[in-house]
């Protein structure tokens, strides 16, 4: 019985923390945010060298053969540091190919994805918030035409995993002339999004795409929940640090009981929720019958709590929290992203409700 991270996972966590503190401190996040680049090639290569991109991919294709919980540890660290970049869609794209691809597709793509030499993105959402596999309407085939919304880091991606009608998946290469990305003006500049226009683009269907798609979605929900947990804790820590230094009326504002209680409530919101994504990550491989429900629950709960805590952190910072100069903005916007991407909390709570047998 052990409900905690393993030694190896803690090591991974602390080495990532060190790495990110050094290579992508908040000042660097700000630079990327201001420039709207969203992708730091050096950071990407550094993380790839650490083995982050293939952590979960089979060893035969150059991955480390680890589990979703290991990826989630990475995601939480990224949330804690508000790390910009195309991590989420890249590891999910790799997962989709590993789970749903043919031997040929796996051999062709996974080694490059694991090493970070190739970059994959996801084209899932359609209009009216159709994020879930059963809602996709884009007709599949050797060539596909249509529009996909909210495609992350589309510019420069070597490959797209595209959601298709019937809940299946296809691969479209980034170089395909039938592809056109239209960058969107986005809130969270650390994770830029595009609208992707497909006009007769060549499409290579994943043979087991229909099984892989909901698994990939569940993994994505877990990683977003992990990101939210790390982000929420960062928001609390920022507010606590501010309350312990800022003075008003001649004393530290952290000595005012009302603010103390607001900070305590933030801790009550976010800290106990960490187990939700741990368990959901664990269940992904080990308790399959609980996987879908626990992933949806973790995403709904943690992204809601992240937003609560981020709002509270802005308030705890007073006027300064409302400025571009204050670092809390990165997390507030990240919270909105985590909450909306792959479907909002209400949508996932409804999914849980449908799958629960309350009479048990």
């Amino acid at each position, binding site marked *: 019985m052990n409900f905690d991270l393993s030694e190896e996972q803690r090591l991974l966590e602390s080495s990532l923390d060190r790495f990110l503190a050094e290579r992508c401190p908040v000042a660097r996040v700000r630079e990327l945010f201001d420039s709207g680049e969203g992708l730091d090639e050096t950071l990407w290569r550094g993380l790839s060298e650490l083995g982050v991109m293939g952590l979960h991919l089979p060893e035969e294709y150059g991955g480390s053969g680890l589990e979703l919980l290991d990826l989630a540890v990475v995601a939480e660290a990224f949330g804690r540091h508000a790390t910009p970049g195309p991590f989420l869609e890249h590891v999910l794209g790799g997962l989709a190919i590993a789970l749903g691809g043919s031997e040929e597709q796996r051999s062709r793509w996974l080694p490059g994805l694991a090493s970070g030499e190739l970059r994959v993105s996801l084209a899932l959402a359609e209009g009216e918030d159709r994020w879930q596999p059963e809602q996709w309407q884009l007709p599949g085939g050797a060539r596909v035409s249509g529009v996909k919304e909210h495609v992350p880091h589309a510019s420069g991606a070597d490959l797209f995993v595209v959601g298709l009608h019937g809940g299946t998946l296809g691969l479209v290469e980034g170089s395909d002339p039938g592809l056109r990305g239209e960058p969107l003006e986005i*809130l969270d500049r650390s994770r830029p999004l595009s609208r992707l226009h497909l006009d007769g683009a060549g499409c290579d269907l994943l043979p087991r795409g229909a099984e892989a798609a909901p698994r990939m979605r569940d993994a994505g929900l877990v990683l977003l929940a992990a990101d939210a947990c790390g982000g929420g804790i960062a928001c609390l820590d920022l507010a606590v640090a501010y309350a312990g230094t800022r003075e008003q009326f*001649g004393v530290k504002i952290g000595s005012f009981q009302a603010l103390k209680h607001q900070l305590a409530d933030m801790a009550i919101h976010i800290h106990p929720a960490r187990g939700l994504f741990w368990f959901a990550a664990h269940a992904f491989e080990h308790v399959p019958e609980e996987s879908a429900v626990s992933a949806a629950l973790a995403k709904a709960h943690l992204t809601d709590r992240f937003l609560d805590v981020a709002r509270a952190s802005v308030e705890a910072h007073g006027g300064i929290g409302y*400025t571009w100069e204050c670092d809390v903005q990165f997390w507030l916007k990240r919270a909105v992203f985590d909450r909306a991407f792959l479907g909002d909390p209400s949508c996932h709570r409804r999914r849980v409700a449908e799958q629960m047998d309350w009479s048990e």
Partner: protein
Amino acid sequence: MDFSFGSEYEAFRETVRVFLGENWPLRGEEADLSESERARRFRRRATEAGYLYRNIPRRFGGSEQPPDLLEAQILREEFGRARAPMELTGQGPQMVVPTLLEWGTEWQQERFIPKTVEGDYVWCQGYSEPGAGSDLASLQTRGERVGDEWVIHGQKIWTTHWNRAQYMFALVRTEPDASKHEGISYLLLEMDQPGIDVRPLKQITGASEFAEVFFDGARTPADWIVGERGQGWRVSRSLLKHERNMLGSGARAQGLFRSLIRLATRVERQGHKAVDDPMVAEKLVELMGYVRSQQYSSYIQLTRELQGGESGLLPLLNKIGNSNIAQQISSIALSLLGSDSLLAPGANPRGTTSGNEKWMNQFMGSLGESIAGGTSNIQRNIIAERGLGLPRQESPASKDEAGGER
């Protein structure tokens, strides 16, 4: 309870309608003038008719009418219906003019009020400082009397209208040896001078409504002080009261609520309008309880002011009620937005003018509510201590906290 205005006032309403029918929109050659020039000409006529700037003497460009809240209400309704320009808004007409009327010298009134009312002079506010926050009275910007001038060093923050203002009204510490609240003076100054450096302050939304203003030996004539030396805190209080009333009216909550309803009737969820989802509808009705409470409370206040009575706790509760409603509305809007919340405030999703993007501004803005007019925590202290009569805290902080209520 009686929602009619009585026959005398209905006659007044009729006169106003006739005036508006004849004067707005402008006709003939005047119709081709620029929008601002048309508004200026109309305002001048409406003031001559006694409908605008009613509390300002005629010699300063006002219409010098006896105060009458019902007439004011009728004017709001009728001008609103006709979409005719009302009084200029902004800190000049709404804050500087009433302050000068109450505290200014005759020459200050003559010098500043008419041009401010005309819209020729635009003002910005110099109250908040980065080190002060809700403890406004601890402000550090200092003014020294050197010869015939005040010489000012320091920094202000949260200055609005910085990009258009020719003048600032500022709180400055001129009596360093006096106690915190007694050492402050209320100064007017020109913005366009070498000792002043204005740096726009980018907000979380990316826009820059506010600026930081740095003073490094900025100068203003000795007699541009309003009230006496050291009276600045008191002078500014009358303004804050005014500002608090502005923020507290029920109209803003109603406007936001109507926008939210429009959003909910526009957004689709699984093929249905969001407003037809029973959960959404029930949430809207719950919110409607708060919005109408706020609306009726402002009617009750208006009634009591009309009768010269006390409105008790209500004015203290007003502002925080509006903040709470704005936050609730933002939260519901965020859920309604779904993936549109991924977009930047001001971005234009799907190339259509769906208007959803402005909700991210509202969402972010609801977080900034606290900047203007006192934070919620300070407001709760005031409600508890002044409204409910609870004891002041025994700590040294407390006295200041209730004093520096911003």
